[in-house]
């Protein structure tokens, strides 16, 4: 601990940098607790980047990018997966557990507190209307997410077809989600594989 650590970008050759002694578990916990508690709706990944990479310089750009991709392609919340990967890089298994616990413990109590507050107000028609309005507004965030996903594949008819197939199967025909996913995902990966080989 005597010497100051060099700039983190210089050691990008080492793939794993766990047990980084400069980050204590309590610091990691507090950083994730703050992220969880102060993040209102979406865009949380950008905040993680700002805090972990830009401000604290715990993680290199490259390691962040690969962790982010991993978190998106696996099941689970994108941000929860992201902090699992970053926590593992910083402090190994205990770091991963600390990070995801820190991220979720604040929102756990906040969301129940919010539901309790709303539940204690006597139900009126006006409150129903207001909650309905808020719910409808929240759908807008999801539509934005869909829009960005479709735009990402816009030059790619095969992938647009994959999106359409999932929407028809799950959204319109109400087939079992797992069934559709297990059928469509291998086709989609095969398409991506062939395209990748063609480009190379």
């Amino acid at each position: 601990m005597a010497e100051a650590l060099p700039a983190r970008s210089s050691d990008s050759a080492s793939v794993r940098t766990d047990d980084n002694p400069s980050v204590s578990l309590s610091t990691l916990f507090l950083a994730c607790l703050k992220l969880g508690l102060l993040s209102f709706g979406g865009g949380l990944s950008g905040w993680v980047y700002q805090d972990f990479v830009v401000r604290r310089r715990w993680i290199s750009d490259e390691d962040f990018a690969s962790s982010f991709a991993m978190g998106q392609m696996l099941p689970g919340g994108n941000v929860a997966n992201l902090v699992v990967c970053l926590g593992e890089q910083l402090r190994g298994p205990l770091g991963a557990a600390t990070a995801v616990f820190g991220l979720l413990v604040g929102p756990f109590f906040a969301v129940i507190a919010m539901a309790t507050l709303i539940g204690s107000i006597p139900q009126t028609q006006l409150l129903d209307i207001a909650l309905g309005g808020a719910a409808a507004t929240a759908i807008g965030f999801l539509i934005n997410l869909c829009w960005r996903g479709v735009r990402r594949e816009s030059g790619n008819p095969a992938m647009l077809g994959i999106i359409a197939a999932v929407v028809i199967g799950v959204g319109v025909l109400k087939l079992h989600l797992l069934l559709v996913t297990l059928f469509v995902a291998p086709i989609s990966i095969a398409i991506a594989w062939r395209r990748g080989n063609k480009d190379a």
Partner: protein
Amino acid sequence: MRDDHLVGLLAVFVPFSLISIGGGISVLSGIQHEIVAVRGWLTAQDFVQLFAISRAAPGPGTMIATLIGWQISGWLGAVVATLAFFLPSSLLCYGVFRLSNAHREKAWHRAVRQGLAPVGTGLVISSVIAILQLSDGGPLTLLLAALSAIVVVVAPRVPVPLYLLCGAGLAVLYHTAMP
């Protein structure tokens, strides 16, 4: 009875945790179907309300799992549902990250990544369809959803609670103006 509910929460959320590609929101329609239609634990209206509350609260968008557990089985239910929904996917992510980190430059890794992205998008769109069908608010719901989708693109930094408050206000205004 209570134990049945806790086991039921595990049975619902563990599988959905492991197939929620594209984020927890992608399995929202599936969770809604299980909780409302199959098991009848909540009404469709309850579910939509919990969704709105979970979006207004801080944290990941999928804290609705916590609320569903809490509504059905109190504090213990909230803990069980939260763990059941977040732990399996986190463990899977952890394992895959450690194993595949050494291969991240390989072509198969990129193909899996790129192939799963549109599947996730399709699942999120399906969730939007399910929620719109559930919410049963008529043209006002569609209007507010479209409006907020536009605003979120133009002004992404507006705090979400402010957003939802405006939506609630507009809905009340609409109903007072034309009863």
